[in-house]
């Protein structure tokens, strides 16, 4: 079920991935913002607090820097759904993601349907009053 007009921030240092994912999620009805790295993403999150979901890569300017993006996103109120999408998951960064309460971990290569399904579900769940802190 498409979720209309929800704002999604995509963070990846590969332009081709950003373009592909932007197209996918715009087709799903999302308003998509993109950031080509963690610093750009952190700037975006400082300036824009109304974000419904964030999908971030892990390794960009530095190893596991995507965790910083996830942390910054989780400080927003209301908290957006936070998804990490990486090809470099290991025990350390996966454990960190679990401890932080990241909502979804996708391992590249990831099927677009998996990612879209996860985001739609998580964004809908955020609207459920039972899940509000």
């Amino acid at each position, binding site marked *: 079920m498409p979720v209309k007009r929800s704002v999604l921030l995509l963070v990846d240092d590969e332009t081709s991935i950003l373009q592909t994912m932007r197209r996918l999620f715009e087709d799903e009805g999302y308003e998509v913002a993109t950031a080509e790295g963690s610093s750009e993403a952190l700037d975006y999150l400082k300036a824009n607090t109304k974000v419904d979901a964030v999908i971030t890569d892990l390794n960009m300017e530095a190893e596991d820097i995507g965790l910083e993006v996830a942390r910054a996103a989780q400080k927003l109120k209301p908290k957006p759904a936070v998804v990490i999408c990486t090809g470099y998951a*290991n025990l350390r960064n*996966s454990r960190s993601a679990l401890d932080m309460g990241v909502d*979804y*971990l996708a*391992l590249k290569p990831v099927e677009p349907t998996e990612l879209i399904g996860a985001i739609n579900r998580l964004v809908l*769940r955020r609207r459920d009053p039972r899940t509000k802190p």
Partner: protein
Amino acid sequence: MSSKANAQNPTKMALVVHSDMGLLSGFQSALSENGFVTIVARDLATALLAITHHFFDVAIVSSRLGEGGDGWPLAGVLHLVFPRAFVAVLSPSEPDVLTLQSAINYGVREVFLQSHPPQEVVGTVLAQMSGSSEKTRGRRVQ
């Protein structure tokens, strides 16, 4: 599956799902010592029945009920039905990346080695629920 919990006098409720009766008994004892009314289930059907009858604050589920990995979707259901509950999974082996991925994606808060004593697991769960997870890091699976 009777309980003393009601809306006026809410009792902390826990669900433990595992096929090993001895382990269930250990968890029931450890949780009771900490003030929980504990419902135990040895299979998926009984666990689902319990979910329809009670409101759980804590759920501890084996990752393997009938077959390997079938405890994860049950943990996911528990997270959806009781979004504020602390849902933990017992893993038979040291968790790898895929185990941690399952934990994240099913909304599980913690993964414990099944071989850990129930008292330790319950202690860690309660510490994390009260926000003092720093003290318990050493007791977790990794």
